[in-house]
């Protein structure tokens, strides 16, 4: 569908920078959704590099049995910070960045609903990132508890733990503000004629993600606050001595933690639901069922949390309930995968880099989904809980799922952002290197877990050596491949073939009616949607 009339796109360009401060102050004071989106994306990439470096330290230590490079305490700090930074610093801000850039343009809005608050929610992130990273350098080091921060271990930690708690508070506040902004924008600022069911799928996924975030980030904030008061103010929420229960923390944490998985995955689904139709030159199959599937995944995600804690010793009735509920998630997830495949069926496909990443996402995310199904089975999970099988499973979901989809999004929208086409050859190189090295890094971890290697250990028994070496080899390959990504993006920003307003033949939606690069101010007058059927 086409917007018949686009006001304010071209002529707004003239007064862009006239009343804006220049240099660093422009970025600090900006309330422009495109500037803020850009900052989110760069912040996310920086954190991705920091978290990635930590992952490589972990993998280097695990290259051989024995302690070679780091001490166990430091190793534990690395796994903790790697987890927190990747989840809260890299993946989540990346998708908030995409939302900032694209949602106003997709729904024909001039900016986000609360432009000033948008600025705040971004600028909370760097202090939180610094707090987390700096906690490595305080006496006692960072929290060495894993990103799950389980007490009583987290009660034993030093000041680094308090810094992590404050960082989580700040990150939580930022996410809540960000998602309120996104939800309000989607609900109130849609162009006339764009009903909810005509909205682009990315907006749908973010609408639901926004609700999820608002519902669960405060719960996490509550949980870490309880740890803080247990540590310093004599409460005993999680200490049996005072009538508390350490397992209670796990319930509260995973009540947040499981929806968090979908907070990361849903926007990724959204991106893929744009990229696949664009490159198959065919509308998305089953738009309505897709919306229902997303909504039901979000709802079910609230009632399955304890499948992360099958071996804490819950009553068998609890184990059965959580097993059945978890298995149920496979149904809507399956619907989505089938819909994507049906979208490709009898299309007219080309395989530019965004499409390759979307296909990589589909293939690998499905593997991650299936191993999730294996883990949902309580009896089998008793053997696999807290092993490398779990590590492999969630990296297939988080890296091959969310990260690959983020790469697809960057390549897909980069022409719109920069006005230049990226280097297709290098983009394909980035894809193939990432795909292969990712699988070398993480596929063997399934075997390690089955054979009985626990996770979060800096040293392991000799029979696990071979697959660990392969995995480390792959991890370094994957890490280095991302430098290529940085190079491709920088090269595109600096120049390259001029991008058309709609560089992808099959792309649909309002964002492609704007010139490339998108002007500083867009849709100051809402576009008018044609009465044609179908969604934007």
């Amino acid at each position: 569908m086409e917007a018949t009339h686009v006001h304010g796109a071209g002529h707004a360009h003239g007064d862009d920078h006239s009343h804006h401060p220049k240099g660093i102050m422009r970025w600090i004071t900006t309330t422009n959704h495109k500037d803020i989106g850009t900052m989110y994306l760069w912040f996310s990439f920086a954190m991705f590099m920091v978290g990635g470096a930590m992952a490589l330290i972990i993998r280097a230590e695990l290259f051989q049995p024995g302690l070679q490079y780091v001490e166990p305490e430091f190793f534990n700090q690395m796994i903790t910070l790697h987890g927190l930074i990747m989840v809260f610093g890299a993946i989540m801000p990346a998708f908030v960045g995409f939302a900032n850039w694209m949602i106003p343009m997709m729904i024909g809005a001039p900016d986000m609903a609360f432009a000033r608050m948008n600025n705040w929610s971004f600028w909370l992130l760097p202090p939180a990132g610094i707090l987390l990273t700096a906690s490595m350098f305080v006496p006692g080091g960072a929290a060495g508890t894993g990103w799950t921060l389980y007490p009583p271990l987290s009660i034993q930690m030093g000041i680094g733990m308090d810094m992590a708690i404050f960082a989580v508070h700040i990150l939580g506040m930022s996410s809540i503000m960000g998602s309120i902004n996104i939800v309000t924008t989607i609900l109130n600022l849609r162009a006339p004629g764009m009903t909810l069911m005509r909205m682009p799928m990315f907006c749908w996924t973010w609408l639901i993600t926004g609700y999820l975030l608002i519902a669960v980030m405060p719960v996490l904030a509550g949980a870490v606050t309880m740890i803080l008061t247990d540590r310093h103010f004599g409460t005993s929420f999680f200490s049996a001595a005072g009538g508390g229960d350490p397992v209670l923390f796990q319930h509260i944490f995973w009540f947040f933690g499981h929806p968090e998985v979908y907070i990361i995955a849903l926007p990724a689904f959204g991106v893929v639901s744009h990229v696949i139709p664009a490159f198959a030159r065919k509308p998305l199959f089953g738009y309505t069922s897709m919306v229902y599937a997303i909504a039901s995944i979000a709802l079910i995600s609230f009632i399955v949390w304890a499948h992360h804690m099958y071996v804490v010793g819950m009553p068998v009735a609890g184990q059965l309930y959580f097993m059945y509920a978890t298995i149920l998630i496979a149904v809507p997830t399956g619907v989505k995968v089938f819909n994507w495949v049906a979208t490709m069926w009898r299309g007219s496909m080309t395989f530019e880099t965004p499409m390759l990443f979307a296909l990589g996402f589909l293939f690998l995310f499905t593997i991650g989904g299936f191993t999730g199904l294996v883990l949902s089975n309580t009896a089998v999970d008793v053997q696999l809980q807290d092993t490398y099988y779990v590590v492999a499973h969630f990296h297939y979901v988080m890296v091959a799922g969310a990260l690959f989809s983020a790469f697809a999004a960057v390549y897909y929208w980069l022409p719109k952002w920069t006005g230049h086409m990226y280097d297709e050859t290098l983009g394909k190189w980035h894809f193939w290197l990432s795909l292969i090295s990712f699988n070398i890094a993480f596929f063997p971890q399934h075997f390690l877990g089955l054979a009985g290697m626990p996770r979060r250990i800096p040293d392991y028994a000799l029979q696990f050596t071979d697959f660990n070496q392969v995995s480390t080899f792959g991890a370094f390959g994957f890490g280095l491949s991302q430098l290529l990504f940085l190079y491709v993006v920088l090269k595109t920003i600096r120049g390259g073939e001029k991008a058309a307003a709609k560089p992808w033949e099959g792309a649909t939606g309002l964002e492609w009616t704007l010139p490339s690069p998108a002007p500083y101010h867009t849709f100051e007058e809402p576009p008018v949607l044609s009465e044609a059927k179908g969604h934007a």
Partner: protein
Amino acid sequence: MGINKKTQSCLAGIALMVWSRMALAAWEFNFQSPATKAAQTVIDLHNLMMIIIVVIFIGVFAVMFYSVFKHRKSRGHQAAQFHDNTMVEIAWTVVPLLILVAMAWPATKALLNMRDTSQADITIKATGYQWKWGYDYLKGEGEGIKFMSLTTTPADQIRGTAAKGGNYLLEVDRHVVVPVGKKIRMLTTATDVIHSWWVPALAVKQDAIPGYVRDTWFKAEKEGIFRGQCAELCGKDHAFMPIVVEVVSAEKYSQWVGEQKKQMAAAADEGGKTYSLNELMSRGEKVYAANCVACHQANGKGLPPAFPALDGSKLAKGPKKDHIAIVLNGKPNTAMAAYGGQLGDGDIAAVVTYERNAWGNKTGDMVQPADIQAARK
């Protein structure tokens, strides 16, 4: 196309390397050989799920790859414009649901069996400490036996200055000995943080939670030594608190119980004995290496600020009484545990003597078991 060729040769190189390594080493890629029916059930269940999953996976991606190869623009394929089909959508919601229900059935049966801890022959309590396991035989043959089980992998193997032994990181000084074919009920608990008692070959994994007991069970079908590890991150030496279960015949078990009882009786009336400084020092060094070295380090320098130094410390050079009290009772709100319940009088006397005379602490003090017995009052 150039990229594909390069990718192919790159792939071939990796495959070759992986293959040549594979021929040399044992690549453990599946569950450990099961020693209980429950472990066998888990393997069967996993195999069943893998078959279903692989079939569905191949089905779905065969369709996708067919489409990827046939329905591409470069082959001149024209895009169809359909975007809905209610019947198909209902089918691919309902059919997976049925498959899942079919999968849940055997899973439920296996789980119910796994959790049935009734009719046990022997009850053993495993207590997680940072970073070792303690065992109490609570009920059944062997009742009253209790001991600590510590890793015996030497530091120089971990640090790479000595060749690693065959059971590297999976060896302990005292095995949990149980008779074959008897139902063993395991209670787990912990004193400091959450640990998890896991032996893969027995398909037993149960978190050990401070302040609470949890229970699980196993019945070993064959004799042998089965090794596992702590499975819940519990701090610095999480990787270094292995679990070793030794399954023996009923006769051997009775014999073992007899020996243990004798040793415990001997340890109990150690209070009357006196030892020379040399005897105390050499015994103390061993006790220190097993219990203290993880935090206070072999050189007595500790890892400040969390783990203070003993070399030259006020405590080790000050009054004997305070030193003994800390070892017996621990220090609240720190990682220093109370060893009164874990070690006998002789061991505590030896280790206190060692700490007061090792490194630069040459105080010349001797502590005898009788001193410890007195301090316990």
